[in-house]
């Protein structure tokens, strides 16, 4: 894997812009369908960033689970509860200025930490195919959380059906 550095930067910047723009659409669009489509855009951008980070498996999982499943779930929920918001009502509640201030303060704090900390970065090359190793570790080192998460998914599945049915 010897992609030129310039190309890596270009890919990073494009994907970062897609992720952030999608996120901004998702939180600002009045129309909820548009917000959900912005969410999909943001998910695709983050998946692209995973590709730039050479975490291909996570990138594909991101597209499968987020773009393929969660976004469709959100779109279904939007369509099932459609046309309810009164037209004259704004999409934001009365505390949106406070929320904006909180978000901006948190962002500047995170910015200070991210740029000010001396990260102990190790220049590592990825050796070979990581996916078999990932599967092996899921079945050995991380077996207990793996099984717990499968139980959680089952509980969530049954719970969602019980809650949502009439």
């Amino acid at each position, binding site marked *: 894997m010897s992609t030129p550095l310039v190309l890596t*930067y270009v890919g*990073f910047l494009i994907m*970062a812009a897609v992720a*952030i723009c999608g*996120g901004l659409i*998702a*939180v600002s669009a009045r129309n*909820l369908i548009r917000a*959900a489509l912005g*969410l999909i855009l*943001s*998910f695709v951008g*983050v998946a692209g*960033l*995973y590709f*730039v*980070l050479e*975490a291909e498996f*996570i990138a594909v999982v991101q597209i499968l*689970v*987020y773009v393929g*499943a*969660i976004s469709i*779930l*959100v779109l279904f*929920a*939007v369509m099932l*509860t459609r046309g*309810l*918001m009164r037209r004259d*009502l704004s*999409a*934001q*509640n009365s*505390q949106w200025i406070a*929320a*904006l201030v*909180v*978000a901006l303060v*948190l*962002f500047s704090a*995170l910015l200070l930490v*991210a*740029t000010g900390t001396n*990260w102990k*970065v190790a220049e590592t090359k990825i050796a070979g195919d*990581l996916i078999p*190793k*990932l599967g092996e*570790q*899921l079945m050995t080192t991380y077996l207990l959380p793996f099984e717990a*998460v499968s139980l*959680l*998914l089952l509980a*969530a599945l049954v*719970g*969602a059906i019980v*809650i*949502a049915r*009439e």
Partner: protein
Amino acid sequence: MIPLPFYLVIAAALFCVGLYGALARRNAIAILIGIELMLNAVNLNLVAFWRYIKPASPTMDLAGQVFALFVVTLAAAEAAIGLALVIAIYRSRDTVNVEDVDLMKW
């Protein structure tokens, strides 16, 4: 390689956008969209740290990716339950505006 802070700044921006969405929106589904954005930002951080920082023990060298996978699973469960709750509220109260759902407020 691209410096690590680049990823951290993008993730921070995404997290704060999601936080604003979760705090400021009226519609319950829009709040869930904000929460999904925040979970995504955290995952981006996990994978970036996995790529750039070597763990102390060599058996933990995929911990960041495994953690990200678990977060994805939890996000899926959270979305399913959250949207089921929204639909249940819509059925019983005919609204998805969180300001109208004040049964437990006094």
